[in-house]
C-alpha cells in the first residue's frame, strides 16, 4: 500500500483495459490522484477528511459486541460503518471522488449503481458539493429498488434507466462508461468500488482506508491490542480493502474476505450462470470493466451472471488488489451461502440491536465457521445497515426455515 507512484498493477492484476476515448481522462485522473490524494495538493485530503467528519459522521465507532463475544467465546468488535451518513461505507468513496472532481474542475459527475447504494451515496455527496449528477441504473434494478431511486431524485440527481440487455449493474457500468467517453472533458465518473481501470482501485481503496485507519487506533485503545483477524464482506471489495488496508503490514492480523456463496458454489456453465458471487473463491483470471482480475466467466471468457441474496455483492468481478492479496496469501478468501447470511442477519439484529445490510451479514455468518485461526480478538466491518433490505429479508426468510427468525406471517408479500 505504499503511496508512491506505481503503474496500476497489483502483480498481473489491474491495468487499464478501456476504450481509447477514455484513456486521456484516465491519465488526467491518474495525475489528479497523485497530486491531490497522494500528495495532498491544495490540502485536498484535509478537506476530504474534514467533510467526512462533519458531513459523513466520522469517526465511526468500534464497538465491543458483548453478546456475540459470549456466543463465539472470543472478543468480537464491530466497526460501525453502518452509522456513516447514507447508511454504508459507500460515502467514504463517493465523497472523495466528487470532491476530487471539483478539484479537477469537472462540472458534472456520472455514476453507475446496482442496488442503489453507491448511487444514493453519490447523490448525497453531489448535493452536498453542489455538483450536477446523473446516475445510470438498469431498468430492472430501478423497478426493484424504488426507494433508492427516489432518494437519489430527492437529492437532485437524475436517474437514467438503462434498458439494454438484462438491465442490471453490468449494463449500467457499460452505459456510464459510454457517457463518460462521450463527455469526458467536463465529466468525472464516480465508480462504486475498488474495481475498474487504474487509478480507480487504488484511489477508492485510499478513500476507504479511513475505515482501517480508525479501527486500528480504536482497537489499540479499546482492546489494548490489534485484532487477530479482520472480517469483511467482499463484493467489488471496497469495504474490504478499506477495512484491510492499514492492517496489511501487520503480520499478526489475519484478513478474511467473505464472499457471497449464493445458493451453491457450483456453476452452470451451460446457462452461463454462477449461483454465487464468489469470484475470489471460484473465479479465474480475466479482464472485466477495465481491469485484469478474478472473474466469474465461462470457458470462453464470457462473463457469467452472478447471484446473491444481497444485491450489493452480486457482481461477477472483484477488485484487482484483493485478487492479488489473495494470491499472495495475505488475504484469505472464504465464503458463506445465502442461508448462512440470512441467519446471521437475524442473529445480529436480535443479539446486538444492529440490523445489518445483507452484504454485511455475510461477514458475520463466517463467525459461525468457528475457524480456529480467527483467534481471540476479531474485528468485523459492519459495512452498512439493513434498512434497504427489509423487503428482501421478508421474501427470502419466508422461503427458508430459519429457526431464529421472527414470525414472518404478518409480512408475507412485503409491506
Amino acid at each position, binding site marked *: 500500500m505504499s503511496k508512491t507512484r506505481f503503474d496500476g498493477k497489483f502483480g498481473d492484476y489491474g491495468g487499464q483495459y*478501456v*476504450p481509447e*476515448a477514455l484513456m*486521456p481522462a484516465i491519465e488526467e485522473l491518474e495525475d489528479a490522484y497523485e497530486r491531490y490524494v497522494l500528495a495532498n495538493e491544495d490540502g485536498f485530503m484535509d478537506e476530504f477528511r474534514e467533510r467526512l467528519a462533519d458531513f459523513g459522521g466520522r469517526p465511526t465507532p468500534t464497538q465491543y459486541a458483548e453478546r456475540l463475544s459470549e456466543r463465539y467465546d472470543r472478543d468480537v468488535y464491530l466497526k460501525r460503518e453502518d452509522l456513516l451518513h447514507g447508511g454504508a461505507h459507500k460515502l467514504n468513496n463517493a465523497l472523495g471522488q466528487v470532491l476530487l472532481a471539483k478539484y479537477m474542475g469537472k462540472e458534472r459527475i456520472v455514476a453507475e449503481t446496482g442496488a442503489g447504494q453507491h448511487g444514493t451515496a453519490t447523490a448525497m455527496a453531489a448535493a452536498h458539493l453542489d455538483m450536477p449528477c446523473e446516475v445510470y441504473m438498469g431498468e430492472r434494478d430501478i423497478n426493484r429498488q424504488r426507494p433508492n431511486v427516489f432518494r437519489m431524485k430527492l437529492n437532485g440527481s437524475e436517474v437514467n434507466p438503462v434498458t439494454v440487455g438484462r438491465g442490471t449493474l453490468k449494463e449500467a457500468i457499460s452505459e456510464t462508461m459510454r457517457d463518460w467517453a462521450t463527455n469526458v472533458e467536463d465529466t468525472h465518473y464516480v465508480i462504486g468500488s475498488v474495481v475498474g481501470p487504474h487509478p480507480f482501485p487504488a484511489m477508492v481503496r485510499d478513500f476507504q482506508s479511513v475505515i482501517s485507519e480508525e479501527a486500528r487506533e480504536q482497537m489499540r485503545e479499546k482492546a489494548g491490542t490489534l485484532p487477530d483477524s479482520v472480517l469483511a464482506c467482499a463484493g467489488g471489495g471496497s469495504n474490504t480493502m478499506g477495512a484491510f488496508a492499514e492492517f496489511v503490514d501487520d503480520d499478526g492480523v489475519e484478513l478474511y474476505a467473505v464472499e457471497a456463496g449464493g445458493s451453491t458454489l457450483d456453476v452452470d456453465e451451460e446457462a452461463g450462470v454462477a449461483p454465487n458471487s464468489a469470484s475470489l473463491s471460484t473465479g479465474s483470471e480475466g479482464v472485466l470493466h477495465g481491469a485484469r482480475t478474478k472473474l466469474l466467466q465461462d470457458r470462453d471468457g464470457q*462473463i457469467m451472471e452472478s447471484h446473491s441474496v444481497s444485491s450489493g455483492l452480486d457482481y461477477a468481478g472483484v477488485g484487482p488488489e484483493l485478487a492479488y492479496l489473495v494470491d499472495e496469501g495475505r488475504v484469505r478468501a472464504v465464503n458463506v451461502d445465502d442461508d448462512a447470511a440470512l441467519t446471521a442477519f437475524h442473529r445480529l439484529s436480535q443479539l446486538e440491536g444492529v440490523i445489518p445490510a445483507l452484504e454485511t451479514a455475510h461477514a458475520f455468518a463466517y463467525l459461525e465457521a468457528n475457524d480456529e485461526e480467527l483467534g481471540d480478538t476479531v474485528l468485523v466491518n459492519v459495512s452498512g445497515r439493513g434498512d434497504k433490505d427489509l423487503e428482501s429479508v421478508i421474501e427470502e426468510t419466508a422461503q427458508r426455515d430459519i429457526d431464529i427468525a421472527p414470525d414472518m406471517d404478518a409480512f408475507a408479500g412485503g409491506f
Partner: protein
Amino acid sequence: MSNPELDAAFADGAAFVPYLAAGDPDFESSIEYVEALERGGADVIELGLPFSEPIAEGPTIQEAVVRSLEGGMTPARFFEFVEALDVDVPLVCMTYYNLIYQYGDESGPRPFVEKAAELGLSGFVVPDLPAEEADPLREACDEFGLDLVFIVAPTTRGDRLERIMEQVSGYVYVQARLGVTGAQDDVSGQTAASLDRLSAYDVPKAVGFGIKTGDHAERIVEGGADGIIVGSALVDIVAEGHENGDDAATVAARLEEKARELKDGAERGLAQRAPQAERT
C-alpha cells in the same frame, strides 16, 4: 509490418469497411448478410465476435451482441462462421480482450491468434485493449502475420498518439467523435482535426462512428480519410428486419443496397478530393 491484404484493400483510397456482429440474429442469416456486404462493395469487413460486456459499444451494437449471444454465438462458433463465409475481402475480427485471452488451454492471446490465422483472418480490433496492454497480442499477431488495428479518439494526442502509432498496423481506426450520437457537422470538425494529427503517419486512416449515409461517407473521404467504417447504420437494418420478421434475403438485399450507397459515397468523396482546389 502490415499485412498485404489490408494494404491492398486501402490501396484505392476510399475503402468501405462495414461492421456486423457475427451471428446476428442467427448463424445462417448472418452469413447471408456478411456476403451481401461484399456484394455491396465492402473492401474490408469487420466481424464482431460478441462479448457479454461490450463497454465500448452504443446501444445499437449492444443489442446486436445480445441477439448474437442468444443465438448461441461463441468463439468456436465464430471460427465456424468465418469458415462458412464465402467472401474474398479481408476480414478483421472485432472483439474484447477477455475472449481472446481465454481461448484455448494455454493462457494468453496466442491460441486465438493462431486459430484466426489458420482461418485466414487478417487482423483484430480490440476496443478495450489500449496500446499499453497490447504487447502480448501484438507479439502473437506478428508471429502469425496478422494486423492489429487501434482506435484513435478525438482526445488522443501527444505521447498517447505516439505510443499507439508505434503499435498499429493494417489501418488506424479514427473515431470520428466522442460518444455515439451527434450531428454530422461536428463529426467533420473533429475528424478533420484527427486526420490532421495523423497525417505524418504512413498508415491508412479509416474513419468511423456515426456514419449513416452516402453523403456522410462522401464528406469524410473528401476530408482526407482513406476509408470509412460503418457499423450501427448496418446493424439497424438487421435489427429492423429481425423485429419485423423479414426473411433473410430481403434483409440481405437492403444491406447490399445500403453498402452500395456508402461505397458510392466514399468514391464520390475521393473523386472530389483531387479536383477540390480547382472547384473554387
